[in-house]
C-alpha cells in the first residue's frame, strides 16, 4: 500500500513538472494567442486595443503569476476557456474525446493483438518464404506515409468502389447509430493499424528469435516439451515484459498520433485539436491536452510496470540485486 502511495505522489509530481514545462515553453514560443481568440480581427488591432485584449485574457502578467493563477483554478477543476471555441476547454475536449478513444483505442487494441499474433507467426516460420514475404511487405507498409495511404484508400474504397464513407465520424442525423459509427470507422482504423502494426510485430518477432536461441530453450526441449509450448510458455512469456513497456509508451503515440488520419478523414477527434491548439496558441486547451496525455503515459507505464513485475520476478526492486549464493552456498546445501 505504501508503495502505491509513493507512486501516486510521484505521479502527481511528474504532472506538476510537466505542467510547468508546457506552460513556460508555450508562452515563450513565438505566436499570437489573440489570433486564436479574435481571429483575423487581431491583426488589425492597434496597440491600445491589443493591450486591453491581452489584459482581459491575463497575458500581460509575468509568467510565474500567470502560472500560479492557472494552477489555482486548475486545482479547483477549472481549466479555463479555449480561446478558439470560447467555451470551457474541458467541454471542448469532452465533445471529441469519445471519437478519438474509439478510433485510437480500438486501433491500439487491434495493433496490440495483431502484432503479437503476427510476430509469433513470423518467428515460428523463421526464414521460410511466409516469414520473408511478411517481413518485406511489413517494411514497405510501415514506410508509406499515412496521408498518402489514406488518400489512396479513399480513392479506391470511397470514390471508385463506393463501399465506405470517405469522411466524418457518422452520417448526418445518425449520431446515435452505433452501426453507422463503426461503418465510418473502418477506413481510418485500417490506416492506423496498417501503418503502426509492423513496427511492433517486427519487434516481437526479433525478440522471440533472440529468446529461441537462449539456453533455457535447450533445457525445455530436452524435457520433451513441444515446440509450440516452448515458444508460447517460455519464449513469449519472456518477451512480454519488454512488449508491455513498449506498448505502454505507444498508447499516446497511437491514440494521439492519429491526427493525420483524423485530418484526412475530417474525423472530429483530439488529434486535430492538439495540433490546432499548439499551432494557434490556444493556451488553456493546450495545457489540458498535455496534462491529459501526460497522465495517460504515466498511467500506462505504471500499469506496464505492475504487469511486468508479475511476469518477471527479477524486476521487483530490491530483489533484483540480491546476490545469489550469499546465504546458501558453502553451508553444505
Amino acid at each position, binding site marked *: 500500500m505504501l508503495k502505491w502511495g509513493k507512486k501516486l505522489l510521484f505521479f502527481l509530481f511528474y504532472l506538476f513538472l510537466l505542467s510547468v514545462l508546457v506552460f513556460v515553453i508555450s508562452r515563450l514560443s513565438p505566436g499570437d494567442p489573440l489570433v486564436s481568440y479574435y481571429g483575423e480581427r487581431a491583426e488589425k488591432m492597434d496597440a491600445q486595443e491589443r493591450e486591453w485584449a491581452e489584459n482581459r485574457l491575463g497575458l500581460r502578467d509575468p509568467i510565474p503569476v500567470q502560472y500560479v493563477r492557472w494552477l489555482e483554478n486548475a486545482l479547483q477543476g477549472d481549466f479555463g476557456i479555449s480561446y478558439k471555441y470560447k467555451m470551457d476547454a474541458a467541454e471542448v475536449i469532452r465533445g471529441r474525446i469519445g471519437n478519438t478513444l474509439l478510433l485510437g483505442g480500438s486501433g491500439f487494441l487491434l495493433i496490440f493483438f495483431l502484432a503479437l499474433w503476427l510476430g509469433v507467426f513470423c518467428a515460428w516460420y523463421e526464414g521460410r518464404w511466409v516469414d520473408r514475404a511478411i517481413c518485406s511487405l511489413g517494411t514497405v507498409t510501415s514506410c508509406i506515409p499515412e496521408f498518402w495511404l489514406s488518400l489512396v484508400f479513399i480513392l479506391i474504397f470511397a470514390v471508385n468502389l463506393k463501399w465506405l464513407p470517405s469522411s466524418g465520424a457518422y452520417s448526418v442525423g445518425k449520431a446515435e447509430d452505433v452501426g453507422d459509427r463503426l461503418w465510418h470507422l473502418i477506413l481510418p482504423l485500417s490506416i492506423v493499424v496498417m501503418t503502426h502494426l509492423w513496427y511492433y510485430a517486427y519487434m516481437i518477432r526479433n525478440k522471440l528469435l533472440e529468446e529461441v536461441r537462449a539456453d533455457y530453450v535447450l533445457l525445455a526441449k530436452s524435457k520433451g516439451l513441444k515446440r509450440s509450448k516452448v515458444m508460447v510458455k517460455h519464449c513469449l512469456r519472456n518477451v512480454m515484459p519488454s512488449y508491455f513497456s513498449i506498448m505502454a509508451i505507444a498508447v499516446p503515440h497511437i491514440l494521439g498520433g492519429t491526427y493525420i488520419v483524423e485530418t484526412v478523414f475530417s474525423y472530429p477527434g483530439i488529434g486535430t485539436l492538439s495540433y490546432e491548439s499548439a499551432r494557434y496558441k490556444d493556451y488553456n486547451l493546450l495545457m489540458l491536452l498535455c496534462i491529459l496525455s501526460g497522465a495517460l503515459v504515466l498511467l500506462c507505464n505504471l500499469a506496464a510496470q505492475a504487469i511486468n513485475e508479475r511476469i518477471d520476478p527479477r524486476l521487483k*526492486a*530490491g530483489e533484483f*540485486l*540480491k*546476490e*545469489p*549464493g*550469499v546465504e546458501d*552456498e*558453502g*553451508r*553444505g546445501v
Partner: protein
Amino acid sequence: MNEEILLDVKHLSHVFSLSKKVRIQAVDDVSFQIRRGEIVGLVGESGSGKSTVARCVMNVYRPKEGEIFYKGINLCDRKEFREHKRMLQSKRQFIFQDSDSALNQRMKVWEIIAEPMKIQHVTPPRGTLRAEAEFQMHLVGLDAGYLDKYPPELSGGQRQRVAIARALAMEPELLVADEPIASLDVSIQAQIVNLFKQLQRQHGFSILFIAHDLAMVEFLCDRVGVMHHGKLVEMAPVKELFEAPRHPYTRSLISAIPIPDPKRERARKTGKEMDKEWMDA
C-alpha cells in the same frame, strides 16, 4: 623477493546495501600485504568476497571501512588518489575472468592492447602503437598473425593472453587477476598459469591472483589467503597451507581438489561428509 611492501590492505570491510533492509557484508575486516615481486593467491567460493577485495584494491568500489595503501599512497583517500591517479592507473592492472565480455568485440586485437597506452599518452618505446602491441603479443605467446583479428575469432585461452598483453603493455607493478582461468579448460589453464609465472619472473611484478581452485594456486603463488563468508580465515605460505592447513574450511577446500585416480577418488569421503566434518569443527 624484495622486502618492500607494495600493497597493504588494512582492516578492509565492504557492505553492499541492496535496499534499506537488505545489506550484505561482502568483506569483513580483511588485512594482508603484498611485497614487491610476490604472487599472492586469494581463494574462496563464489560469494566469499574475494572479487570484492580485488575491486576495492583497483578502486572500483570504495570500501566502507579500512584502508588500502599502495606504495604508501592511501587509495581510499580521494585527494591522495587524485594526485597519483595517473601512476596508479598505469601501474596497477586488472585482468578479468570473462575475457569474452571484457574485450571489446568490435576492436582489433592490436587496438585492444594499445588502448591503455593511447589513453595514458604513453609514447610507445618501439615506435608505433602497433609495433608495441606486436611486441607485447610476442611476450604472451601470440604471433603477429593475430594483430588484426577480432576477439570472437579467438579461443578462450587466446583471448586471455590478449587481456594479459593489454595489462603488460603498461609495465605494471601490480597485476590483479580475478579468476583469470576459471572459464578455461584444464589444459589451457596450465598454459595460462605457466605464462603468469614466466612473465612474473621476467618483469618482476606482483600478482594478486584470485581463484576458486586451489590446485592451480598451489603452483603459482608464494602465499595464499583463504576467504570464507567475507573473512580471511587463513593466510600462509603456499607450502605451509597445503601441508598443514589450520582452518577447517581450508581443509575442506584442499580435499575437494579432484584427484585423477579413480580408485583413490572412489575411496574418498563424499562432499557431504567433508562438509559435516568442518561444520562440526
